[in-house]
């Protein structure tokens, strides 16, 4: 709940960082976390066949003046936006209880909802207490309830947490409403282009610019604790990998070797980065960099292109794309460099690239050539079965939500880069409304720790 309070501090730190960076790399701007127009508003293009009917009763408020925010509305929007719920309209509610004891379940059976959520917000000194109770309407039983104490400015985040808990209690899957998404936004025409690394709440709110540059920014990657982002920036004239701390805005170049420094991916324990580096002949290979001590291990040694590394959920293997078989396919190799030859993982079709392993280790997401169209697909790592999830023709950069139940990816619509979402079971699709800039390379944050 406290971690958004980083923001003000970050403003100050960013301006310090700004001047330091500006002196070193003219033309690179670390932006001042100024709120920009929300670019990340997801609208559901295909929902569940049978969404779950739920009533989210407007929350009560006891305190001075007006309520500092509408928690129920945030929760409602979250659940609706998941595509799995059908929230009841407020104006057809026959009663508006704020406590479980006041619920008349017949009133809710009458409007045919399976669940009813009630809650209230109370002023407790300088803080707020957000209390909620979720009930199974037919069983007339409480399913989940909690009370959160928070600072008023964290009300949105707390509301997302409630939505997470409700989502989990009903679906058995952890909600991701309280998480964030990072992505790259590109505006302007060459040579006057501006690249921004942007972080926003999963519902598109609280958007802020982490980095702004006239040179390309690529491949953002969240550290497992959600506190840092690694990315590639061309601000020095060639690709280098940086790690930036969100709280402070401070950053450092962790790989700025001659040639290519590309595609950083954090190990699950956060101590290592898998990278693609080029050797003197320009040959691309996958390496693992231990951040503490700057120790580098080379995993692949071939004249083929070996790139786009990602870690297995247990951290013992690294998956990557290689054209060693003639066409791009996904391979897997021991992360400690103990294996000479990688194992091929994908077999269906002649193009499977840009692998990402779901946090639960069950699925491998890839960009798959589906009869001439590049689409997001997931392969069940146990059975090997591949399922195409997206329906575009230039879909790329899939990234799992931390609950493994959803993916976000980039595609092109009407000549522009846009972001879309799809559930891992393929049933639910969403589109991210964009304000006009090219957006690409979305990456979902882990759960805050």
């Amino acid at each position, binding site marked *: 709940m406290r971690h958004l309070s980083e923001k003000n501090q970050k403003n100050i730190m960013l301006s310090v960082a700004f001047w330091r960076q500006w002196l070193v790399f003219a033309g690179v701007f670390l932006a001042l976390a100024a709120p920009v127009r929300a670019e990340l508003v997801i609208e559901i293009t295909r929902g569940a066949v049978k969404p779950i009917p739920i009533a989210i009763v407007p929350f009560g408020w006891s305190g001075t003046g007006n309520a500092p925010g509408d928690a129920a509305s945030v929760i409602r929007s979250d659940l609706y936006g998941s595509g799995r719920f059908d929230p009841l309209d407020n104006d*057809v509610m026959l009663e508006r209880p704020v406590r479980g004891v006041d619920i008349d379940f017949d009133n809710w059976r009458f409007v045919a909802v399976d669940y009813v959520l009630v809650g209230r917000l109370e002023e407790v000194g300088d803080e707020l207490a957000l209390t909620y109770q979720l009930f199974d309407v037919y*069983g007339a039983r409480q399913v989940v309830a909690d009370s959160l104490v928070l600072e008023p400015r964290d009300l949105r985040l707390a509301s997302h947490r409630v939505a997470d808990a409700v989502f989990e209690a009903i679906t*058995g899957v952890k909600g991701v409403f309280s998480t964030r998404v990072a992505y790259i936004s590109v505006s302007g025409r060459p040579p006057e282009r501006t690249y921004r690394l942007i972080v926003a709440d999963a519902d598109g709110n609280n958007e802020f610019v982490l980095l702004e540059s006239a040179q390309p920014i690529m491949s953002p990657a969240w550290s497992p604790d959600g506190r840092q982002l690694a990315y590639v920036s061309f601000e020095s004239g060639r690709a280098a990998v940086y790690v930036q701390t969100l709280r402070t805005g401070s950053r450092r170049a962790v790989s700025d070797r001659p040639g290519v420094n590309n595609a950083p991916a954090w190990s699950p324990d956060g101590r290592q980065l898998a990278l693609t580096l080029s050797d003197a002949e320009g040959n691309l290979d996958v390496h693992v960099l231990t951040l503490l001590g700057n120790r580098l291990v080379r995993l692949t040694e071939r004249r083929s292109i070996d790139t786009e590394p990602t870690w297995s959920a247990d951290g013992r293997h690294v998956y990557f794309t290689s054209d060693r078989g003639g066409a791009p396919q996904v391979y897997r190799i021991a992360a400690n460099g103990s294996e000479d030859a990688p194992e091929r993982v994908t077999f269906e079709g002649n193009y499977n690239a840009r692998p990402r392993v779901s946090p639960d280790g069950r699925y491998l997401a890839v960009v798959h050539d589906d009869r001439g169209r590049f689409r997001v697909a997931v392969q069940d790592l146990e059975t090997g079965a591949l399922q195409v999830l997206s329906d575009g023709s230039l879909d790329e950069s899939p990234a799992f939500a931390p609950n493994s139940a959803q993916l976000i990816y980039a595609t092109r619509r009407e000549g522009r880069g846009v972001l879309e979402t799809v559930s891992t079971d393929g049933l639910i699709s969403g589109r991210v409304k964009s304000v006009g800039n090219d957006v690409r390379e979305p990456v979902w944050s882990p759960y805050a720790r």
Partner: protein
Amino acid sequence: MRHILDNAIALIGSVALHGVLVALLLINFDWGDEPPPPVQTTIKARIVSDETTVSRPAPPAEPSAAEIAERQRQEAAARERRQREEAARLQREAEAREAAEREAQAQAEREAQEAADRQAREEAERQAREAEQRQAREEAERQARKEAERKAREEAERQAREEAERRAREEAERRAAEARQAELDAQLQDALEAELAREGAIEQGLQAKYIEVIRQKVRREWRVPPGAANDIVCTVRVRQLRSGDVVSVVVSDCPGGEALSRSLSIAVNRASPLPPPDDPSLFEPNLVLRFNTSESE
């Protein structure tokens, strides 16, 4: 004041009365001597003899001077006595009259007082009555106003409730329409499965078919939680009334977690009332239904 005036009037009246009495005495002096007026007779008497009779009754004998004096004295005494008696009588009469007048006066005063009292009482009563009527009227008006307000409030509440119910009905209808749509979508599959169910029924008997129809209705209401793994089988024990209304649902032997168990319990409740068998003798109050997470769309 009035008393003094009355006394003065009485005094003056009394004096005047006495004056009149004395005057009357003087005037009446001869009245008593006068013989009764002569009776008209058929005899035509002559005036001469008449005069004699009138002026000087013929004494039986010539009285003596002493006798005359005596008689005169007696007559005077008698006259005096009569006068005294007459005065006393007049006095008594005057007094009686006075008393009667006083009494009448007092009576008049009493009556006036009583009339005034009555009037005052009546006035007070009238005012009280009017006040009472006014109060009653105001109370009635207030009641009427309150009643009108209450009715208006009730009407507004009734309208609001009807509106809410109408919307709720519309919402329910919308959901029902959606459910129908979903059913249509499922129709093909259902037809196939119903066919299978029918085939099964032929083999296993009509009871099995009946239970399968119930199972399919529940399955259509079932929203499998996305977190549930594939191919999980859960057992649901249902008790139903003759009407098909579900009395209790117990999900057992369901290794998919609480959300999955609850989703099945909700599905059974949503499917209530459960469809009846074609043949009423096949009705089964206790059902055991099995569902697989991979069978729902």
